[in-house]
Protein backbone atom coordinates (compact mmCIF):
# COMPACT_ATOMS: atom_id res chain seq x y z
CA UNK A 1 0.00 0.00 0.00
CA UNK A 2 1.29 3.44 -0.84
CA UNK A 3 1.24 6.34 1.54
CA UNK A 4 1.08 6.24 5.29
CA UNK A 5 -1.39 4.09 7.21
CA UNK A 6 -2.59 7.00 9.29
CA UNK A 7 -2.42 10.61 8.29
CA UNK A 8 -3.53 13.34 10.66
CA UNK A 9 -3.94 16.81 9.22
CA UNK A 10 -4.41 20.01 11.21
CA UNK A 11 -6.33 18.24 13.93
CA UNK A 12 -7.85 20.77 16.31
CA UNK A 13 -10.10 20.45 19.34
CA UNK A 14 -11.49 23.38 21.29
CA UNK A 15 -13.66 22.84 24.32
CA UNK A 16 -16.03 25.54 25.41
CA UNK A 17 -15.05 26.49 28.92
CA UNK A 18 -18.07 27.12 31.05
CA UNK A 19 -21.34 27.89 29.34
CA UNK A 20 -23.89 30.44 30.29
CA UNK A 21 -27.45 30.99 29.26
CA UNK A 22 -26.45 34.30 27.75
CA UNK A 23 -23.73 33.43 25.35
CA UNK A 24 -21.20 36.09 24.84
CA UNK A 25 -17.71 35.09 23.85
CA UNK A 26 -17.34 31.78 25.63
CA UNK A 27 -13.70 31.15 26.38
CA UNK A 28 -12.35 27.97 24.83
CA UNK A 29 -9.77 25.49 26.01
CA UNK A 30 -7.46 24.90 23.10
CA UNK A 31 -6.81 21.28 23.95
CA UNK A 32 -5.35 20.35 20.58
CA UNK A 33 -4.24 22.94 18.07
CA UNK A 34 -3.30 22.20 14.48
CA UNK A 35 -1.68 18.82 15.00
CA UNK A 36 -0.43 16.94 11.95
CA UNK A 37 1.54 13.70 11.70
CA UNK A 38 1.66 10.40 9.89
CA UNK A 39 2.14 6.81 10.99
CA UNK A 40 3.38 4.11 8.64
CA UNK A 41 2.32 0.50 8.80
CA UNK A 42 4.23 -1.37 11.48
CA UNK A 43 5.69 1.81 12.93
CA UNK A 44 5.59 3.13 16.49
CA UNK A 45 4.98 6.83 16.87
CA UNK A 46 5.22 8.08 20.43
CA UNK A 47 3.53 11.22 21.62
CA UNK A 48 5.15 12.63 24.74
CA UNK A 49 4.33 15.62 26.86
CA UNK A 50 3.19 16.61 30.32
CA UNK A 51 -0.34 16.61 31.64
CA UNK A 52 -2.58 19.03 29.81
CA UNK A 53 -0.50 19.01 26.63
CA UNK A 54 -3.35 17.39 24.72
CA UNK A 55 -1.83 13.99 24.06
CA UNK A 56 -4.78 12.05 25.44
CA UNK A 57 -7.19 14.28 23.58
CA UNK A 58 -5.37 13.36 20.37
CA UNK A 59 -5.91 9.67 21.16
CA UNK A 60 -9.61 10.19 21.71
CA UNK A 61 -9.91 12.27 18.57
CA UNK A 62 -8.23 9.52 16.55
CA UNK A 63 -10.72 6.99 17.90
CA UNK A 64 -13.54 9.45 17.27
CA UNK A 65 -14.61 9.15 20.89
CA UNK A 66 -14.88 12.91 20.63
CA UNK A 67 -15.46 15.03 17.55
CA UNK A 68 -12.70 17.28 16.25
CA UNK A 69 -13.30 21.00 15.91
CA UNK A 70 -11.32 20.93 12.68
CA UNK A 71 -8.90 18.73 10.81
CA UNK A 72 -8.79 15.38 9.13
CA UNK A 73 -7.88 11.86 10.20
CA UNK A 74 -7.12 9.65 7.21
CA UNK A 75 -6.71 5.91 7.34
CA UNK A 76 -5.38 4.54 4.05
CA UNK A 77 -6.49 7.79 2.50
CA UNK A 78 -10.08 7.77 3.81
CA UNK A 79 -11.06 10.62 6.07
CA UNK A 80 -12.77 9.05 9.06
CA UNK A 81 -13.38 12.35 10.80
CA UNK A 82 -16.16 13.07 8.33
CA UNK A 83 -17.72 9.62 8.25
CA UNK A 84 -21.26 8.89 9.26
CA UNK A 85 -22.03 6.29 11.89
CA UNK A 86 -22.38 3.24 9.64
CA UNK A 87 -19.26 3.88 7.61
CA UNK A 88 -17.37 4.66 10.79
CA UNK A 89 -18.42 1.32 12.26
CA UNK A 90 -16.57 -0.47 9.46
CA UNK A 91 -13.45 1.67 9.87
CA UNK A 92 -13.28 1.19 13.61
CA UNK A 93 -11.95 -2.31 13.03
CA UNK A 94 -8.72 -0.89 11.67
CA UNK A 95 -7.91 1.07 14.78
CA UNK A 96 -8.15 -0.04 18.41
CA UNK A 97 -7.20 1.45 21.71
CA UNK A 98 -5.48 0.29 24.90
CA UNK A 99 -6.25 2.34 27.97
CA UNK A 100 -4.14 3.57 30.84
CA UNK A 101 -5.94 2.21 33.83
CA UNK A 102 -6.20 -1.58 33.77
CA UNK A 103 -8.81 -1.36 36.52
CA UNK A 104 -11.44 1.03 35.23
CA UNK A 105 -11.08 0.07 31.58
CA UNK A 106 -12.52 -3.38 32.14
CA UNK A 107 -16.17 -3.86 33.04
CA UNK A 108 -16.05 -5.46 36.50
CA UNK A 109 -19.20 -7.45 35.77
CA UNK A 110 -17.95 -9.34 32.74
CA UNK A 111 -15.60 -12.30 32.57
CA UNK A 112 -12.27 -12.20 30.79
CA UNK A 113 -13.72 -14.18 27.88
CA UNK A 114 -16.71 -11.86 27.51
CA UNK A 115 -14.50 -8.79 27.61
CA UNK A 116 -12.11 -9.83 24.89
CA UNK A 117 -14.65 -11.30 22.49
CA UNK A 118 -17.10 -8.42 22.74
CA UNK A 119 -15.59 -6.33 19.91
CA UNK A 120 -15.83 -9.23 17.47
CA UNK A 121 -19.46 -9.80 18.36
CA UNK A 122 -20.19 -6.24 17.36
CA UNK A 123 -19.31 -7.25 13.81
CA UNK A 124 -20.29 -10.87 13.44
CA UNK A 125 -22.29 -13.33 15.48
CA UNK A 126 -20.34 -16.14 17.03
CA UNK A 127 -21.44 -19.55 18.17
CA UNK A 128 -20.56 -20.60 21.69
CA UNK A 129 -17.76 -22.75 20.37
CA UNK A 130 -16.33 -20.05 18.13
CA UNK A 131 -16.41 -17.62 20.99
CA UNK A 132 -14.54 -20.02 23.26
CA UNK A 133 -11.95 -20.72 20.61
CA UNK A 134 -11.47 -17.02 19.87
CA UNK A 135 -11.11 -16.15 23.55
CA UNK A 136 -8.59 -18.93 24.12
CA UNK A 137 -6.62 -17.85 21.07
CA UNK A 138 -6.57 -14.21 22.15
CA UNK A 139 -5.54 -15.09 25.68
CA UNK A 140 -2.68 -17.19 24.35
CA UNK A 141 -1.57 -14.32 22.11
CA UNK A 142 -1.15 -12.05 25.11
CA UNK A 143 0.62 -14.69 27.15
CA UNK A 144 -2.23 -15.74 29.39
CA UNK A 145 -3.55 -19.19 30.09
CA UNK A 146 -6.88 -20.01 28.37
CA UNK A 147 -8.08 -21.18 31.78
CA UNK A 148 -8.45 -17.53 32.72
CA UNK A 149 -11.46 -17.26 30.43
CA UNK A 150 -14.02 -17.32 33.23
CA UNK A 151 -12.18 -15.03 35.63
CA UNK A 152 -13.56 -11.65 36.61
CA UNK A 153 -11.22 -8.66 36.33
CA UNK A 154 -11.17 -8.36 40.11
CA UNK A 155 -9.55 -11.78 40.31
CA UNK A 156 -6.63 -10.76 38.13
CA UNK A 157 -3.44 -8.82 38.80
CA UNK A 158 -2.76 -5.42 37.25
CA UNK A 159 -0.48 -6.91 34.62
CA UNK A 160 -2.98 -9.58 33.68
CA UNK A 161 -5.70 -6.96 33.39
CA UNK A 162 -3.59 -4.92 31.04
CA UNK A 163 -2.99 -8.06 28.97
CA UNK A 164 -6.76 -8.44 28.75
CA UNK A 165 -7.03 -4.84 27.56
CA UNK A 166 -4.50 -5.62 24.85
CA UNK A 167 -6.29 -8.85 23.92
CA UNK A 168 -9.50 -6.88 23.52
CA UNK A 169 -7.74 -4.45 21.21
CA UNK A 170 -6.30 -7.35 19.19
CA UNK A 171 -9.64 -9.08 18.78
CA UNK A 172 -10.54 -7.18 15.62
CA UNK A 173 -7.06 -7.62 14.12
CA UNK A 174 -6.46 -3.89 13.75
CA UNK A 175 -3.58 -2.43 11.78
CA UNK A 176 -3.13 0.35 14.32
CA UNK A 177 -3.33 0.34 18.09
CA UNK A 178 -3.48 3.54 20.07
CA UNK A 179 -2.01 3.00 23.51
CA UNK A 180 -2.80 5.84 25.90
CA UNK A 181 -0.33 5.60 28.79
CA UNK A 182 -0.74 1.86 28.54
CA UNK A 183 2.14 1.01 30.88
CA UNK A 184 2.15 4.04 33.16
CA UNK A 185 0.03 2.50 35.89
CA UNK A 186 2.13 -0.65 36.08
CA UNK A 187 5.08 -1.61 38.25
CA UNK A 188 8.48 -1.69 36.60
CA UNK A 189 8.71 -5.46 36.29
CA UNK A 190 5.17 -5.74 34.93
CA UNK A 191 5.80 -2.79 32.64
CA UNK A 192 8.71 -4.69 31.10
CA UNK A 193 6.45 -7.68 30.48
CA UNK A 194 3.82 -5.55 28.75
CA UNK A 195 6.37 -3.64 26.66
CA UNK A 196 7.83 -6.95 25.52
CA UNK A 197 4.36 -8.13 24.59
CA UNK A 198 3.72 -5.01 22.53
CA UNK A 199 7.07 -5.37 20.75
CA UNK A 200 6.35 -9.04 20.01
CA UNK A 201 2.93 -8.24 18.62
CA UNK A 202 4.38 -5.56 16.40
CA UNK A 203 6.97 -7.95 15.05
CA UNK A 204 4.56 -10.84 14.50
CA UNK A 205 1.60 -8.96 13.10
CA UNK A 206 3.07 -5.74 11.81
CA UNK A 207 0.79 -3.62 13.97
CA UNK A 208 1.49 0.09 14.06
CA UNK A 209 1.32 1.90 17.39
CA UNK A 210 0.51 5.40 18.43
CA UNK A 211 2.00 5.21 21.90
CA UNK A 212 1.16 8.01 24.24
CA UNK A 213 3.32 8.36 27.33
CA UNK A 214 4.98 10.77 29.67
CA UNK A 215 7.77 8.33 30.48
CA UNK A 216 10.77 9.14 28.33
CA UNK A 217 12.58 5.94 29.24
CA UNK A 218 9.74 3.86 27.85
CA UNK A 219 9.38 6.12 24.81
CA UNK A 220 13.04 5.95 23.95
CA UNK A 221 12.88 2.19 24.16
CA UNK A 222 9.99 1.52 21.82
CA UNK A 223 9.56 4.55 19.55
CA UNK A 224 10.59 4.80 15.92
CA UNK A 225 9.59 8.43 15.84
CA UNK A 226 8.61 10.79 18.63
CA UNK A 227 6.28 13.78 18.67
CA UNK A 228 6.71 16.16 21.60
CA UNK A 229 3.62 18.14 22.52
CA UNK A 230 3.33 21.26 24.62
CA UNK A 231 0.03 23.00 25.32
CA UNK A 232 -1.86 21.38 22.46
CA UNK A 233 0.78 21.76 19.79
CA UNK A 234 3.56 19.58 18.45
CA UNK A 235 6.81 21.40 19.13
CA UNK A 236 9.15 18.77 17.77
CA UNK A 237 8.71 15.59 15.75
CA UNK A 238 11.78 13.53 15.02
CA UNK A 239 13.17 10.04 14.60
CA UNK A 240 13.62 8.66 18.10
CA UNK A 241 17.38 8.23 18.00
CA UNK A 242 17.99 11.74 16.70
CA UNK A 243 15.59 13.27 19.19
CA UNK A 244 17.20 11.72 22.25
CA UNK A 245 20.73 12.17 20.96
CA UNK A 246 20.26 15.82 20.16
CA UNK A 247 17.00 17.49 21.12
CA UNK A 248 16.49 20.71 19.19
CA UNK A 249 13.47 22.36 20.79
CA UNK A 250 14.32 23.78 24.23
CA UNK A 251 11.26 22.09 25.70
CA UNK A 252 12.36 18.68 24.43
CA UNK A 253 15.73 19.40 25.93
CA UNK A 254 14.20 20.33 29.29
CA UNK A 255 12.00 17.24 29.28
CA UNK A 256 14.91 14.90 28.61
CA UNK A 257 17.04 16.65 31.22
CA UNK A 258 14.30 16.40 33.83
CA UNK A 259 13.76 12.66 33.49
CA UNK A 260 15.36 10.83 36.41
CA UNK A 261 18.10 8.47 35.32
CA UNK A 262 18.79 5.29 37.30
CA UNK A 263 22.49 5.97 37.46
CA UNK A 264 23.83 7.49 40.68
CA UNK A 265 27.21 8.26 39.14
CA UNK A 266 25.71 10.64 36.63
CA UNK A 267 26.36 14.22 37.64
CA UNK A 268 23.44 16.48 36.98
CA UNK A 269 24.64 19.71 35.39
CA UNK A 270 21.52 21.44 34.27
CA UNK A 271 19.17 23.13 36.67
CA UNK A 272 15.60 21.95 36.06
CA UNK A 273 13.45 24.15 33.87
CA UNK A 274 11.62 26.72 35.97
CA UNK A 275 7.92 27.38 36.22
CA UNK A 276 4.90 25.27 35.42
CA UNK A 277 2.79 24.47 32.40
CA UNK A 278 0.45 27.42 31.82
CA UNK A 279 -3.29 26.97 31.54
CA UNK A 280 -4.63 26.08 28.10
CA UNK A 281 -7.54 28.47 28.68
CA UNK A 282 -5.31 31.45 28.50
CA UNK A 283 -2.08 30.30 26.85
CA UNK A 284 0.87 32.67 26.57
CA UNK A 285 1.10 34.71 23.41
CA UNK A 286 3.51 33.71 20.67
CA UNK A 287 5.37 30.52 21.47
CA UNK A 288 3.57 28.87 24.39
CA UNK A 289 6.87 27.81 25.94
CA UNK A 290 8.46 31.27 26.00
CA UNK A 291 7.77 32.10 29.70
CA UNK A 292 9.81 29.06 30.75
CA UNK A 293 12.31 29.09 27.92
CA UNK A 294 15.93 30.03 28.65
CA UNK A 295 16.46 31.01 25.03
CA UNK A 296 13.36 33.16 24.56
CA UNK A 297 13.81 36.32 22.52
CA UNK A 298 11.40 39.14 21.79
CA UNK A 299 10.00 37.42 18.70
CA UNK A 300 8.92 34.37 20.76
CA UNK A 301 6.57 36.56 22.80
CA UNK A 302 4.81 37.86 19.76
CA UNK A 303 4.76 35.26 17.04
CA UNK A 304 3.98 31.55 17.28
CA UNK A 305 6.77 29.65 15.56
CA UNK A 306 5.77 27.35 12.66
CA UNK A 307 7.01 23.78 12.39
CA UNK A 308 10.14 23.96 10.26
CA UNK A 309 11.63 20.89 8.60
CA UNK A 310 15.29 20.30 9.40
CA UNK A 311 17.98 18.48 7.49
CA UNK A 312 17.77 15.21 9.48
CA UNK A 313 14.08 14.70 8.77
CA UNK A 314 12.70 16.29 11.90
CA UNK A 315 10.38 19.23 12.26
CA UNK A 316 10.78 21.80 15.04
CA UNK A 317 8.76 24.82 16.06
CA UNK A 318 11.25 27.27 17.53
CA UNK A 319 12.31 30.73 16.37
CA UNK A 320 15.76 30.43 17.90
CA UNK A 321 16.80 26.86 17.19
CA UNK A 322 14.92 26.38 13.93
CA UNK A 323 14.42 29.75 12.29
CA UNK A 324 12.15 29.62 9.29
CA UNK A 325 14.19 31.01 6.43
CA UNK A 326 11.44 30.51 3.91
CA UNK A 327 8.07 30.31 5.52
CA UNK A 328 6.61 27.03 4.26
CA UNK A 329 3.15 27.25 2.70
CA UNK A 330 0.57 26.24 5.22
CA UNK A 331 -1.52 23.24 4.15
CA UNK A 332 -5.16 24.14 3.67
CA UNK A 333 -7.27 23.65 6.76
CA UNK A 334 -9.98 21.14 6.11
CA UNK A 335 -13.39 22.56 6.79
CA UNK A 336 -15.39 19.39 7.17
CA UNK A 337 -16.45 19.63 10.74
CA UNK A 338 -19.10 17.29 11.93
CA UNK A 339 -21.07 16.90 15.09
CA UNK A 340 -22.85 13.73 15.98
CA UNK A 341 -24.84 13.37 19.10
CA UNK A 342 -23.41 16.35 20.89
Amino acid at each position, binding site marked *: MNGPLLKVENLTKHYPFGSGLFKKAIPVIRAVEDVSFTVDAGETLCIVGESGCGKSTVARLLMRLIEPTAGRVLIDGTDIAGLKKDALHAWRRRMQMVFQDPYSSLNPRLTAGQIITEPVENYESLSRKQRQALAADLLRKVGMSPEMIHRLPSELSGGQRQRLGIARALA*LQPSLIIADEAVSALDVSVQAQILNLLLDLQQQMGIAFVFISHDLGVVEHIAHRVAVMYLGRIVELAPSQALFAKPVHPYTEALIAAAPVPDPTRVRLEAPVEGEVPSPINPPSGCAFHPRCPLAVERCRVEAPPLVPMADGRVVACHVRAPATVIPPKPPVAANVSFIGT
Partner: protein
Amino acid sequence: MGLLIILALAAPLYAGDPVNIDPFKRLQPSSAEMWFGSDNLGRDVFARTIFGARISLVVGMLSAASAALAGLLIGVIAGYSRSFDNVVMRVMDGLMSIPTILLAIALISLTGPGIGILIVAIAIPETPAVARLVRSVVLGVRERPYVEAALCGGASLPKVLWRHILPSTIPALMVQGATVCASAILTEAGLSFLGVGVPPEIPSWGNMIASSRLYLAIAPMTIFAPGICLAITVLAVNLLGDGLRDVFDPRAKRRR
Protein backbone atom coordinates in the same frame (compact mmCIF):
# COMPACT_ATOMS: atom_id res chain seq x y z
CA MET B 1 -39.48 -10.80 54.23
CA GLY B 2 -39.74 -14.13 52.44
CA LEU B 3 -41.78 -15.31 55.38
CA LEU B 4 -44.13 -12.36 54.96
CA ILE B 5 -44.67 -13.10 51.29
CA ILE B 6 -45.29 -16.78 51.92
CA LEU B 7 -47.70 -15.97 54.72
CA ALA B 8 -49.56 -13.56 52.49
CA LEU B 9 -49.69 -15.88 49.50
CA ALA B 10 -50.79 -18.87 51.53
CA ALA B 11 -53.43 -16.85 53.37
CA PRO B 12 -56.48 -18.65 52.02
CA LEU B 13 -55.05 -21.99 53.13
CA TYR B 14 -54.95 -21.36 56.85
CA ALA B 15 -56.65 -18.12 57.77
CA GLY B 16 -60.36 -17.83 58.20
CA ASP B 17 -62.68 -15.80 56.03
CA PRO B 18 -61.65 -12.17 56.27
CA VAL B 19 -64.93 -10.66 55.13
CA ASN B 20 -67.40 -12.91 56.94
CA ILE B 21 -69.50 -10.69 59.19
CA ASP B 22 -70.63 -12.25 62.44
CA PRO B 23 -72.62 -9.78 64.57
CA PHE B 24 -72.51 -12.11 67.57
CA LYS B 25 -68.76 -12.13 67.83
CA ARG B 26 -68.02 -8.39 67.80
CA LEU B 27 -64.87 -7.06 69.41
CA GLN B 28 -63.90 -10.37 70.92
CA PRO B 29 -60.50 -10.81 72.59
CA SER B 30 -57.96 -13.29 71.29
CA SER B 31 -59.08 -16.88 71.25
CA ALA B 32 -58.08 -20.21 69.75
CA GLU B 33 -60.57 -19.66 66.95
CA MET B 34 -59.65 -16.07 66.20
CA TRP B 35 -56.01 -15.49 67.26
CA PHE B 36 -56.19 -11.73 67.29
CA GLY B 37 -59.86 -11.52 68.26
CA SER B 38 -62.49 -9.87 66.12
CA ASP B 39 -63.38 -6.37 65.07
CA ASN B 40 -66.47 -4.19 65.30
CA LEU B 41 -68.29 -6.22 62.68
CA GLY B 42 -67.19 -9.52 64.14
CA ARG B 43 -64.62 -10.19 61.41
CA ASP B 44 -61.52 -12.25 62.19
CA VAL B 45 -58.69 -9.76 62.79
CA PHE B 46 -55.98 -12.36 62.21
CA ALA B 47 -57.43 -13.31 58.85
CA ARG B 48 -57.89 -9.69 57.91
CA THR B 49 -54.34 -8.87 58.89
CA ILE B 50 -52.95 -11.68 56.79
CA PHE B 51 -55.10 -10.74 53.81
CA GLY B 52 -54.16 -7.14 54.37
CA ALA B 53 -50.55 -8.12 53.86
CA ARG B 54 -51.43 -9.24 50.34
CA ILE B 55 -52.87 -5.84 49.50
CA SER B 56 -49.96 -3.99 51.05
CA LEU B 57 -47.35 -6.10 49.31
CA VAL B 58 -49.09 -6.02 45.95
CA VAL B 59 -49.53 -2.27 46.06
CA GLY B 60 -46.00 -1.76 47.39
CA MET B 61 -44.28 -3.98 44.89
CA LEU B 62 -46.24 -2.96 41.84
CA SER B 63 -45.81 0.73 42.65
CA ALA B 64 -42.11 0.18 43.21
CA ALA B 65 -41.80 -1.81 40.00
CA SER B 66 -43.62 0.76 37.89
CA ALA B 67 -41.73 3.67 39.46
CA ALA B 68 -38.45 1.82 38.97
CA LEU B 69 -39.21 0.99 35.35
CA ALA B 70 -40.34 4.49 34.47
CA GLY B 71 -37.47 6.00 36.43
CA LEU B 72 -34.95 3.71 34.78
CA LEU B 73 -36.14 4.58 31.30
CA ILE B 74 -36.22 8.31 31.93
CA GLY B 75 -32.97 8.25 33.89
CA VAL B 76 -31.00 6.35 31.26
CA ILE B 77 -32.19 8.56 28.42
CA ALA B 78 -31.62 11.70 30.46
CA GLY B 79 -28.14 10.46 31.32
CA TYR B 80 -27.31 10.06 27.68
CA SER B 81 -29.07 12.87 25.87
CA ARG B 82 -28.35 16.42 26.86
CA SER B 83 -31.40 18.01 25.29
CA PHE B 84 -33.81 15.44 26.71
CA ASP B 85 -32.07 15.76 30.03
CA ASN B 86 -32.78 19.46 30.42
CA VAL B 87 -36.48 19.20 29.64
CA VAL B 88 -37.30 16.00 31.45
CA MET B 89 -35.38 16.66 34.60
CA ARG B 90 -37.19 20.00 35.03
CA VAL B 91 -40.51 18.15 34.66
CA MET B 92 -39.27 15.64 37.23
CA ASP B 93 -38.35 18.46 39.60
CA GLY B 94 -41.89 19.74 39.19
CA LEU B 95 -43.37 16.33 39.96
CA MET B 96 -41.17 16.01 43.01
CA SER B 97 -42.69 19.12 44.49
CA ILE B 98 -46.23 17.64 44.49
CA PRO B 99 -47.08 15.87 47.75
CA THR B 100 -47.79 12.18 47.18
CA ILE B 101 -50.96 12.05 49.24
CA LEU B 102 -52.52 15.08 47.56
CA LEU B 103 -51.77 13.79 44.06
CA ALA B 104 -53.23 10.41 44.98
CA ILE B 105 -56.38 11.94 46.43
CA ALA B 106 -56.80 14.11 43.36
CA LEU B 107 -56.34 11.20 40.95
CA ILE B 108 -58.63 8.91 42.90
CA SER B 109 -61.35 11.48 43.17
CA LEU B 110 -61.25 11.68 39.37
CA THR B 111 -61.61 7.96 38.74
CA GLY B 112 -63.01 6.52 41.93
CA PRO B 113 -61.16 4.18 44.27
CA GLY B 114 -59.41 1.07 42.97
CA ILE B 115 -56.14 -0.73 43.39
CA GLY B 116 -54.93 0.03 39.86
CA ILE B 117 -55.32 3.77 40.12
CA LEU B 118 -53.83 3.64 43.59
CA ILE B 119 -50.68 2.04 42.24
CA VAL B 120 -50.41 4.65 39.49
CA ALA B 121 -51.03 7.44 41.97
CA ILE B 122 -48.27 6.22 44.25
CA ALA B 123 -45.81 5.43 41.45
CA ILE B 124 -45.97 8.83 39.74
CA PRO B 125 -44.53 10.96 42.53
CA GLU B 126 -41.88 8.31 43.31
CA THR B 127 -40.59 8.18 39.73
CA PRO B 128 -38.52 11.39 39.79
CA ALA B 129 -36.36 10.18 42.68
CA VAL B 130 -35.58 6.98 40.82
CA ALA B 131 -34.96 8.83 37.56
CA ARG B 132 -32.56 11.18 39.29
CA LEU B 133 -30.65 8.36 40.86
CA VAL B 134 -30.40 6.37 37.64
CA ARG B 135 -29.34 9.46 35.76
CA SER B 136 -26.53 10.17 38.19
CA VAL B 137 -25.30 6.59 38.00
CA VAL B 138 -25.42 6.70 34.18
CA LEU B 139 -23.55 10.00 34.11
CA GLY B 140 -20.88 8.46 36.30
CA VAL B 141 -20.57 5.22 34.36
CA ARG B 142 -20.60 6.68 30.85
CA GLU B 143 -17.30 8.40 31.55
CA ARG B 144 -15.65 5.18 32.68
CA PRO B 145 -12.92 3.94 30.37
CA TYR B 146 -14.58 0.57 29.90
CA VAL B 147 -17.54 2.28 28.27
CA GLU B 148 -15.17 4.14 25.96
CA ALA B 149 -13.40 0.86 25.34
CA ALA B 150 -16.66 -0.72 24.26
CA LEU B 151 -17.32 2.16 21.86
CA CYS B 152 -13.82 1.72 20.46
CA GLY B 153 -14.63 -1.93 19.88
CA GLY B 154 -17.40 -0.82 17.57
CA ALA B 155 -20.34 -1.38 19.90
CA SER B 156 -23.46 0.61 19.09
CA LEU B 157 -24.93 2.96 21.65
CA PRO B 158 -27.95 0.80 22.54
CA LYS B 159 -25.64 -2.14 23.01
CA VAL B 160 -23.33 -0.18 25.28
CA LEU B 161 -26.33 0.96 27.28
CA TRP B 162 -27.68 -2.54 27.61
CA ARG B 163 -24.45 -4.35 28.35
CA HIS B 164 -22.33 -1.87 30.25
CA ILE B 165 -24.51 0.84 31.66
CA LEU B 166 -27.79 -0.77 32.69
CA PRO B 167 -26.22 -3.47 34.88
CA SER B 168 -24.39 -0.89 36.94
CA THR B 169 -27.62 0.90 37.76
CA ILE B 170 -29.15 -2.26 39.21
CA PRO B 171 -27.70 -2.11 42.74
CA ALA B 172 -28.77 1.48 43.25
CA LEU B 173 -32.13 0.71 41.66
CA MET B 174 -32.68 -2.19 44.05
CA VAL B 175 -32.10 -0.06 47.11
CA GLN B 176 -34.19 2.76 45.75
CA GLY B 177 -36.89 0.29 44.70
CA ALA B 178 -37.09 -1.09 48.21
CA THR B 179 -37.35 2.40 49.65
CA VAL B 180 -40.12 3.22 47.19
CA CYS B 181 -41.85 -0.05 48.03
CA ALA B 182 -41.74 0.74 51.74
CA SER B 183 -43.03 4.23 51.27
CA ALA B 184 -45.72 2.96 48.90
CA ILE B 185 -46.94 0.57 51.56
CA LEU B 186 -47.10 3.45 54.02
CA THR B 187 -48.84 5.72 51.51
CA GLU B 188 -51.38 3.03 50.71
CA ALA B 189 -52.11 2.56 54.40
CA GLY B 190 -52.41 6.31 54.83
CA LEU B 191 -54.75 6.70 51.87
CA SER B 192 -56.87 3.78 52.96
CA PHE B 193 -57.02 5.25 56.44
CA LEU B 194 -58.29 8.45 54.92
CA GLY B 195 -60.84 6.45 52.99
CA VAL B 196 -59.53 7.22 49.52
CA GLY B 197 -57.32 4.19 49.04
CA VAL B 198 -58.41 0.61 48.70
CA PRO B 199 -62.19 0.23 48.75
CA PRO B 200 -63.33 -0.43 52.33
CA GLU B 201 -64.71 -3.91 51.62
CA ILE B 202 -61.22 -5.15 50.80
CA PRO B 203 -59.21 -5.87 53.95
CA SER B 204 -56.15 -3.63 54.01
CA TRP B 205 -54.15 -2.47 56.98
CA GLY B 206 -55.09 1.12 56.44
CA ASN B 207 -58.78 0.26 56.29
CA MET B 208 -58.49 -1.87 59.40
CA ILE B 209 -56.81 0.83 61.42
CA ALA B 210 -59.36 3.38 60.20
CA SER B 211 -62.38 1.27 61.10
CA SER B 212 -60.94 0.20 64.45
CA ARG B 213 -59.72 3.51 65.75
CA LEU B 214 -62.98 4.08 67.65
CA TYR B 215 -62.59 0.80 69.49
CA LEU B 216 -59.00 1.20 70.58
CA ALA B 217 -59.86 1.04 74.27
CA ILE B 218 -62.09 -2.00 74.00
CA ALA B 219 -60.19 -4.11 71.47
CA PRO B 220 -56.62 -2.85 71.11
CA MET B 221 -55.68 -5.89 69.04
CA THR B 222 -57.79 -4.63 66.15
CA ILE B 223 -55.40 -1.70 65.74
CA PHE B 224 -52.14 -3.15 66.96
CA ALA B 225 -52.18 -6.20 64.71
CA PRO B 226 -52.25 -4.27 61.43
CA GLY B 227 -50.13 -1.47 62.86
CA ILE B 228 -47.32 -3.72 63.98
CA CYS B 229 -47.50 -5.71 60.77
CA LEU B 230 -47.17 -2.48 58.84
CA ALA B 231 -44.05 -1.48 60.77
CA ILE B 232 -42.46 -4.92 60.43
CA THR B 233 -43.19 -5.07 56.70
CA VAL B 234 -41.68 -1.66 56.02
CA LEU B 235 -38.59 -2.59 57.99
CA ALA B 236 -38.30 -5.94 56.22
CA VAL B 237 -38.61 -4.31 52.80
CA ASN B 238 -35.84 -1.84 53.62
CA LEU B 239 -33.55 -4.60 54.88
CA LEU B 240 -34.29 -6.59 51.75
CA GLY B 241 -33.14 -3.64 49.65
CA ASP B 242 -29.78 -3.60 51.43
CA GLY B 243 -29.46 -7.33 50.99
CA LEU B 244 -30.21 -7.13 47.28
CA ARG B 245 -27.61 -4.45 46.78
CA ASP B 246 -24.97 -6.66 48.33
CA VAL B 247 -25.93 -9.51 46.05
CA PHE B 248 -25.82 -7.42 42.89
CA ASP B 249 -22.69 -5.44 43.61
CA PRO B 250 -19.62 -7.37 42.47
CA ARG B 251 -17.39 -5.35 44.77
CA ALA B 252 -19.46 -6.12 47.82
CA LYS B 253 -19.32 -9.77 46.88
CA ARG B 254 -15.56 -9.78 46.73
CA ARG B 255 -15.25 -8.25 50.15
CA ARG B 256 -17.14 -11.02 51.77
